């Protein structure tokens, strides 16, 4: 039975292993800076997708003309295209910027326009709406909605964050302890998210990723221990672990926000609404997990022993896999 269980876990990991590079949700960005009344500097940052150039193209309005030679710089995580255009004396209000190819991806593109008078406009093109209309200042709630959606999307797409929350849910016993633990995690990642986004501290991604994976690996044996009725510091005080590792996860969330290239003026709003989005996503996940547990109880599902152990082993083995993978990447970057 144990060999079947181990086989199943490895098989599940295998599904993930084969597709580690399958989807890249790092956003793209388009920065437009007005140089003269009818002249704009345009920087299109297309993230690397599947290890290849991004399938989305930048398509500017037909009556805009490129001045001089466009440039192209390849970076580790993106290709940056730069050009200066003239609108031929016409206004850019109401013009549509398109991103053909974006609809076949899961990438969002953040568009920012900085005018000569200092006013700014930002908007987002998404796979479901691969274009953006240039227009005047937007009401605050539109911008807030976009950052809220980004935070919500970031946590629900980040299986490593969710797996950590799941690990905590599997350890926690009792409603009060659940509340304490989730609140601790929220407070901790909000602190580091704010610190990192406001630029007071910075965590380099490779070691951060490895540490986040380690936090998931750490929870695996604790879940198994908890199921066996044993105790440990983590089982007695899960909120403490949630707080400590929550600080790490906050830096991870910050990486999702900082790559959007938001304007400084939008920073406090962006931080606030992104965090609200993250919390909402986390609450949805916790609610779903609790609803599922309640459903099993209502339907009187009797799990065999091996199935009861499966969540703990899944959390642990995925954490181990990501720890090894990310440590290898970290070491590869050092040497």
């Amino acid at each position, binding site marked *: 039975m144990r*060999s*079947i269980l*181990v*086989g199943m876990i*490895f*098989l599940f*990991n*295998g*599904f*993930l*292993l*084969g*597709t*580690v*590079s*399958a*989807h*890249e*949700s*790092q956003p793209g960005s388009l920065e437009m800076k007005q140089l003269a009344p009818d002249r704009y500097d345009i920087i299109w940052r297309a993230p690397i997708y599947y*290890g290849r150039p991004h399938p989305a193209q930048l398509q500017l309005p037909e009556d805009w003309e490129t001045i001089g030679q466009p440039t192209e710089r390849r970076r580790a*995580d993106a290709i940056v295209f730069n050009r200066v255009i003239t609108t031929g004396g016409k206004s850019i209000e109401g013009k549509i910027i398109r991103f053909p190819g974006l609809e076949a991806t*899961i990438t969002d593109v953040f568009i920012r326009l900085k005018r000569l008078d200092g006013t700014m406009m930002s908007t987002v093109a998404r796979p479901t709406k691969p274009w953006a209309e240039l227009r005047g200042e937007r009401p605050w709630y539109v911008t807030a909605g976009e950052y809220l959606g980004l935070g919500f999307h*970031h946590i629900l*797409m*980040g*299986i*490593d964050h969710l797996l950590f929350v799941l690990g905590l849910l599997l350890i926690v016993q009792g409603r009060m302890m659940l509340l304490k633990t989730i609140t601790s995690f929220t407070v901790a990642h909000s602190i580091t998210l704010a610190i990192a986004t406001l630029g007071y501290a910075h965590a380099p*991604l*490779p070691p*951060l*990723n490895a540490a*986040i994976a380690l936090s998931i690996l750490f929870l695996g044996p604790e879940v198994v221990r908890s199921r066996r009725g044993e105790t440990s510091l983590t089982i007695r005080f899960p909120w403490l672990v949630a707080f400590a590792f929550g600080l790490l996860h906050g830096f*991870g969330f910050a*990486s*999702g926000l900082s790559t959007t290239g938001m304007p400084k003026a939008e920073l406090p709003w962006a931080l606030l609404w992104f965090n609200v989005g993250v919390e909402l996503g986390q609450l949805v996940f916790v609610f*779903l997990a609790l*609803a*599922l547990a*309640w*459903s*099993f109880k*209502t*339907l*009187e*599902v009797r799990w065999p022993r091996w199935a009861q152990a499966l969540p703990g082993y899944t959390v642990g083995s995925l954490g181990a896999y*990501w720890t090894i*993978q*990310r440590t*290898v*990447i970290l070491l590869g970057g050092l040497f």
Partner: protein
Amino acid sequence: MKRSLLHNLRILLGAALSAALLQPSEAAAHLVTTGMGPVYDGIGHLLLTPEDLVPALAMSLYAGMRGRAPGRRALFLFPLAWLLGGFAGLSASGTPTFPLPAISFLLLGALIAADLRMPDNIFTVLALAVGIMHGFFNGIALKAGPSGLGLLGIMAALFVLVAIVSAFVLSLKPPWARIAVRVAGSWVAAMGLLMIGWFFRGQG
């Protein structure tokens, strides 16, 4: 002798799995790169496709109405049948022209509206048949996209959906709540009728 053979088979299976897993895979470790994209695509496909979502909800409602044992049976068999049908669909070459999903709307909706009791075996066959049929159509639709992992995502989403919805229906105590579920079933049946009507009108 038999035991030793089984033991060797297990070792062979373990070795084969290990060999498959140790194949080099491209390592792209951005924090938000989870490798779960196709699975999410599958979940999204189910939740955004009313042709699949409504019969899945209807099956869950009906399972909940029938009680704990059918609820448990639907919880495990329905997603599994969907997955198997999906794998069959991945290797299918054409798309059936008859609107089979509309039939499942009509059938499940009518069963809910009538609150019809049926023997456990027939309920099992129903869950398997509806699951396999919708899975088959999904397999065809996902062939060019997230394929197998997408089907896994659909199966996971179905498992959660069936569990929560059937348990919710099961927990409903007031008599009017059961009537409300039956009304919902009649809407599903009406949708099925409309879909069949559109199909034949289009043919004509």
